[in-house]
């Protein structure tokens, strides 16, 4: 039996121990992220905005579960596929969608776009567009926490595509050497862009990289929000209480392409359909049913999400853009 299969029963137990309100919150977050991204895909097709759009659809339980293990003061830093992490860290759909629409009301004033969502007030330290380039930054924020003794933990998200990058190894090596309070989370969605894992990594088990750096590791499936929360909570506890880093590999799957221009020719429709059966949001709903939440209440959550996203799109649509004259003030701090 694999480590991953053995988790099923323990996870159901954990779900039973999670109260209905909390389960509802996770469901709300996951669904809002899904609906937000569907709205973004639609707006993209309507050419309301351009650039790159990397959707997270299918992976929602990872961001929502992992961030549920954090305190508000903790830092999160992520890649260009970071809409979900931003939302789960407490940023509003309004500020996120407005940012993608390039508006001044966006979280980065329309200067960052889809790949560069930031919110200092929520300790969301950004999305980054260079694969692996943000991993040393995570070591830096964790270094600052240890330096100040502020008890904060840094969560650093990246994909399997980051693992061959030097920046991944340097960031993890320094965090290990200096015993920094950081959790490195590899969201292994099996493809780095259009290249399957077996053609980009000599060892399929990413978590084994932890062995060489002498740090703790974990590896599990990412379709169950409760499992993700509880396993990440272990790593967060290790970071917060023992000031030790962990490398966590979460196996997941994106239902959509790498970006909007991806025709998806590198994987079969059957494979995608097979993974869709493990939709983390469908499972999140199932948890609510099992927790005996009334169907009406569940529908009410769904209705609320729909309204939230519609309102956010409207807000973004109606927001102004930043004037060119103001641009230069963002290059240097006076």
């Amino acid at each position, binding site marked *: 039996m694999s480590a991953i299969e053995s988790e099923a029963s323990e996870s159901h137990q954990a779900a039973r121990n999670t109260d209905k309100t909390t389960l509802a919150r996770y469901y709300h977050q996951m669904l809002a992220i899904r609906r937000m991204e569907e709205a973004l895909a639609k707006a993209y097709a309507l050419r309301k905005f351009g650039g790159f759009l990397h959707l997270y659809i299918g992976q929602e339980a990872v961001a929502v579960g992992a961030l549920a293990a954090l305190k508000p003061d903790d*830092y999160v*830093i992520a890649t260009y596929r970071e809409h979900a992490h931003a939302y789960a860290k407490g940023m509003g759909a309004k500020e996120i969608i407005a940012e993608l629409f390039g508006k001044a009301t*966006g*979280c*980065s*004033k*329309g*200067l*960052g776009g889809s790949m*560069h969502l*930031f*919110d*200092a007030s929520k300790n969301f*330290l*950004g999305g*980054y*567009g*260079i694969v692996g*380039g*943000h*991993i*040393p*930054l*995570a*070591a*830096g*924020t*964790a*270094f*600052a*926490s240890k*330096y*100040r003794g502020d008890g904060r933990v840094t969560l650093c998200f990246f994909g399997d595509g980051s693992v061959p990058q*030097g*920046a991944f190894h*340097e*960031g993890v*090596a*320094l965090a290990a*050497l200096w015993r920094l309070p950081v959790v490195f989370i590899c969201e292994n969605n099996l493809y780095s862009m259009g290249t399957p894992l077996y053609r980009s990594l000599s060892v399929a088990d990413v978590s084994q990289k932890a062995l060489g750096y002498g740090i703790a590791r974990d590896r599990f499936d990412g379709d169950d929000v409760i499992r993700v929360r509880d396993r990440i909570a272990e790593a967060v506890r290790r970071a917060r209480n023992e000031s030790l880093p962990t490398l966590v590999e979460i196996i997941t799957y994106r239902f959509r392409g790498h970006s909007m221009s991806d025709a998806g020719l590198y994987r079969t429709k059957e494979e995608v359909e097979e993974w869709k059966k493990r939709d983390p949001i469908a499972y999140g709903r199932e948890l609510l049913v099992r927790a005996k939440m009334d169907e009406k209440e569940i529908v009410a959550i769904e209705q609320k999400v729909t309204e939230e996203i519609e309102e956010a799109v409207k807000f973004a649509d109606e927001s102004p853009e930043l004037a060119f004259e103001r641009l230069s*003030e*963002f*290059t*240097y*701090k006076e």
Partner: protein
Amino acid sequence: MPRTVAFREALNEAMAEEMEKDDRIFLMGEEVGHYDGAYKVSKGLLKKFGEKRVIDTPIAEGGFVGVGIGAAMVGLRPIIELMTWNFSFVAADQLINNAAKIRQMSGGQFTLPVVFRGPGGSAHMLAAQHSQSTEALWAHIPGLKVVMPANPKDAKGLLKSAIRDDNPIIFIEGEVLYADQGEIPDGEYTIPLGVAEVKRPGTDLTIIGWSKMVKIALATAEALAAEGIEAEVVDPRTIRPLDEELLVQSVSKTKRCLILEEGWPFNGVGAEIAYRIGRRCFDDLDAPVERLTGADMPMPYNHHLEQQCIPDVPRAVAAAKKLLYLE
């Protein structure tokens, strides 16, 4: 009473004084602590401030440069020493894509008070990979400031300003300047970034140079003075932001401009300065702006070949005379 100190001591004093005042400042880099600095710039700082604030790193520039940026994002004020700027290229993604851009990409939410410092330029017989001027590369990038002191006084005053600045700073110390002695004022002083200085007044031509080229410029001016030619030497001190006004003011007066640059000519800092002088002083110039730069090729190892690749006094004198139509 002014004191005489070495260039490396001036830098050391700047860091020690600022670290004394602000415990958000730490020094990180290869050999900065227990080894007391590859070039002894950080000598004694470990003893004074302890391992928490003077941190030795493994040889992983991309990693610890990134650590400095991350730490600065959340409120610390790191000084990151690169053993030499030659090694900065493995950290180029961190410097260009993160340090220079995070403020803008975040809509101004994050500022990066971090200084990246270390020796630059050629030394002696270090061959191509260890002999290069990187200021043109860094100055190309909006979001970075580039500072290049020429003497101990400037080194201390500019480094203190750099440490207090809220932007990422590229601070390049001429490798061959570390042992240079010079007078510095006693007590607290700073020199603002972006302010050039006339290092020698003159009337017949302006020689612009920075870092160790200031020494070549001053020696060239002495040689010219023996022939009755009075050169004004202007040191921008900060490459970005560039004190264009003082350069323009000087050239408007002398009507001739020679730029000395150790780095390569193509897209060099001198090319930018020449453009600005050409545009601003078009009506005043009595000759086209002249540049004397490093040779347009990787640095050779052989001593004689190497010396011919770096601007020197005889060639600077010849270039000055060409400007004055004396040859």
